[in-house]
């Protein structure tokens, strides 16, 4: 509802606050109310009811359609933004199964609360930050995911669970069960979690033996009390090494904070004898989004100056929005890196210098432009070399025995050829609208198609090295033979240039 309101305000057609407003989704028997604003709630509109019924109840109700997919995407972005408080965050999404759930975020704040001077102050801070974004929130801290879920939705404001007895008065809906199970439990006279927990486990297990794990009250109860583990699994693994810079005022340019962040991160990696292979700079924007840029290193590195240099040309690509107030530098991929010794002359190692060069070039021009050529055991010339990542030791070099040109065209170019014999060398040929008269030739060298990876109709090639009277040396080939049953007359191509 609040996201919808923000979007309406951005479009410039915000409704007054005293206008009852509901968002609807399609249901089996017509649209169903999905969310309501405060005025509509006071006039009796409830979520889950049909829109036509609510129109009868509240005639001036305005109805719009809800954007559930957009809500989910926004929640996932917000979960990433919530990494400003603690590293383990995920969006939990119980809309389909659970009665009165709604969306939520789950944060594993273990070890993070002291950074915010205690749990109470952390919750206050979170609520303030979220309200700055225009979202109202209900927050709770509890030892398990289930308990926090229940307290946030059905407990007091900013509840902090110290004892599991706090959960006993909550209704059974707070166990994250679906509507049928809740109705069944209510019919059995079990209205609160405490009354459910007082029952013997054996009879509960027997009664709900066929229910799935998400609908089984016993499993849900164990998850709430922590007897069954239920870890928070974020969409991507939080990094081990991270350095933060909290700013008093939102800014637009992170350049000046980068050297200190790099130095801090490198200090942490040096303690663990690790070096970064990839680095990620994240800015937490004031509009509830995050922006990231990533750089990579060819060899693990923990030199602050080098790492800061890699970001130099890319900082302008970060989208600062309306400013950001938290910058974090993370190392998602690290590798062990021992202490490094400079040689006696004070210089550094050659491999290290080349890896720095590779990093600088790839950071500037992209990952695909730079490659190291390495030989591949294949007779087909265009397959005889491969573009690989730089700085990786090449396997044993396998050069073919016969002569190969120094330059190879990316695609062989067809030439028009005059020959004395169809099987013999060309006497004249025309390439790029210029004629060449062959004086000397060498060949043919026959290269058969590689039947294990070529298509069945591929023709063999007869390569000739030819020289014209001015000394231009080319590598030509004739594709196929006359009457080999794989197409018409053989065609001639120019494939390479000799020195």
């Amino acid at each position, binding site marked *: 509802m609040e996201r919808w309101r923000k979007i309406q305000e951005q479009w410039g057609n915000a409704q007054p606050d005293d206008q009852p407003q509901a968002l609807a989704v399609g249901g089996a028997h017509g649209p169903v109310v999905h969310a309501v604003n405060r005025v509509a709630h006071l006039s009796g509109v409830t979520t889950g009811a049909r829109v036509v019924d609510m129109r009868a109840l509240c005639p001036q109700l305005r109805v719009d359609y809800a954007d559930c997919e957009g809500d989910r995407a926004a929640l996932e972005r917000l979960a990433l933004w919530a990494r400003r408080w603690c590293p383990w965050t995920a969006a939990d999404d119980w809309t389909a199964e659970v009665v009165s759930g709604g969306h939520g975020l789950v944060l594993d704040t273990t070890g993070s609360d002291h950074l915010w001077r205690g749990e109470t102050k952390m919750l206050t801070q979170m609520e303030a930050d979220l309200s700055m974004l225009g979202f109202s929130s209900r927050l709770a801290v509890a030892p398990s995911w289930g308990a926090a879920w229940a307290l946030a939705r059905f407990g007091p404001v900013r509840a902090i669970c110290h004892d599991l007895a706090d959960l006993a008065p909550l209704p059974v809906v707070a166990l994250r069960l679906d509507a049928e199970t809740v109705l069944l439990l209510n019919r059995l006279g079990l209205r609160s979690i405490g009354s459910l927990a007082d029952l013997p486990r054996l009879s509960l297990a027997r009664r709900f033996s066929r229910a799935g794990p998400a609908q089984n009250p016993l499993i849900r109860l164990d998850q709430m009390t922590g007897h069954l583990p239920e870890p928070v699994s974020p969409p991507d693994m939080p990094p081990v090494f991270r350095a933060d810079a909290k700013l008093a005022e939102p800014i637009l340019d992170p350049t000046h904070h980068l050297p200190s962040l790099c130095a801090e991160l490198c200090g942490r990696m040096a303690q663990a004898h690790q070096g970064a292979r990839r680095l990620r700079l994240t800015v937490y924007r004031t509009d509830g989004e995050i922006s990231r840029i990533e750089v990579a290193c060819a060899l693990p590195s923990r030199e602050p100056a080098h790492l800061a240099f890699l970001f130099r040309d890319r900082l302008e690509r970060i989208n600062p929005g309306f400013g950001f107030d938290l910058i974090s530098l993370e190392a998602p991929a690290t590798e062990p890196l021992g202490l490094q010794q400079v040689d006696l002359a004070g210089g550094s190692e050659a491999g290290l*210098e*080349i890896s720095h*060069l590779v990093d600088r070039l790839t950071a500037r021009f992209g990952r695909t432009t730079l490659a190291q050529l390495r030989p591949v055991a294949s007779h087909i010339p265009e397959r005889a070399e491969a573009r690989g990542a730089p700085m990786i030791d090449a396997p044993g070099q396998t050069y*073919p025995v016969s002569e*190969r040109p120094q*330059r190879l065209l*990316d695609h062989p170019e067809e030439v028009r050829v005059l020959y004395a014999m169809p099987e013999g060398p060309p006497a004249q040929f025309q390439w790029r609208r210029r004629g060449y008269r062959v004086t*000397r030739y060498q060949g043919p060298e026959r290269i058969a198609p590689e039947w294990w990876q070529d298509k069945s109709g591929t023709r063999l090639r007869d390569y000739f090295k030819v020289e014209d009277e*001015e*000394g231009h040396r080319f590598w030509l080939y004739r594709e196929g033979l006359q009457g080999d049953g794989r197409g018409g007359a053989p065609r001639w191509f120019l494939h390479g240039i000799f020195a």
Partner: protein
Amino acid sequence: MLRMDAPSIVQARRSASRAPQADITLSEVFPEPGAEAAAIGFALTRLGSGAAPVLWIQDRLAQRETGHPFLAGLGLQRPLMVMQLSRPADVMTAVEEGLRCRALAAVIAEIRGNPTAVSFTAMKRLALRAEASGVPCWLIRQAATADLSAARDRWRIATLPSTCNPDDPRAPGDPRWRVELFRSRDKRPGEWVARHERGAANRIHLVTAVPDGALAEDTGAVGQRAAR
């Protein structure tokens, strides 16, 4: 070692002090049309031996017109890092970045035509950086006119008919090029016929192309080797 490659250069002379040595600075090579592969061979044979990698940067036009360096034909004993960029300005930036790395054997860049990015100032930067870091830099200027430049050595190279192949009289033998050093800061310009001896030796024999009678028969040696 005496080598007589053609009858017209029997009297050719070679002097060690005048002969261009492979030195560490910015050099430009202007291949004639059709001699782009000869420029590769010439630049690579002048690098000397070693195991340090070579950084090879091409702009897109040069790659599309004349292809990319082919590892199997080059027969290099060192790693070859290739980089393909679309704009000549990017090539100049990448060359300058590469020249900061002392661990490279050389930076070789191929640029086609006379783009504005290859200006006198940009070349001067490359020359100073190459001399400061001790990494030779070769600019292969395909299809370009030799206008104002800060390169220390400027070469022009063209193909010549190859030598006789001892194994097969109809086949081309060792490649020969006409190499001209037409502008140099510290060497004497000249024109040579270079013969690239392939195989295990892999060296270049330079013979002055124009018989110079004023130079007396002071030295008997004709060939000059650039072993690698």
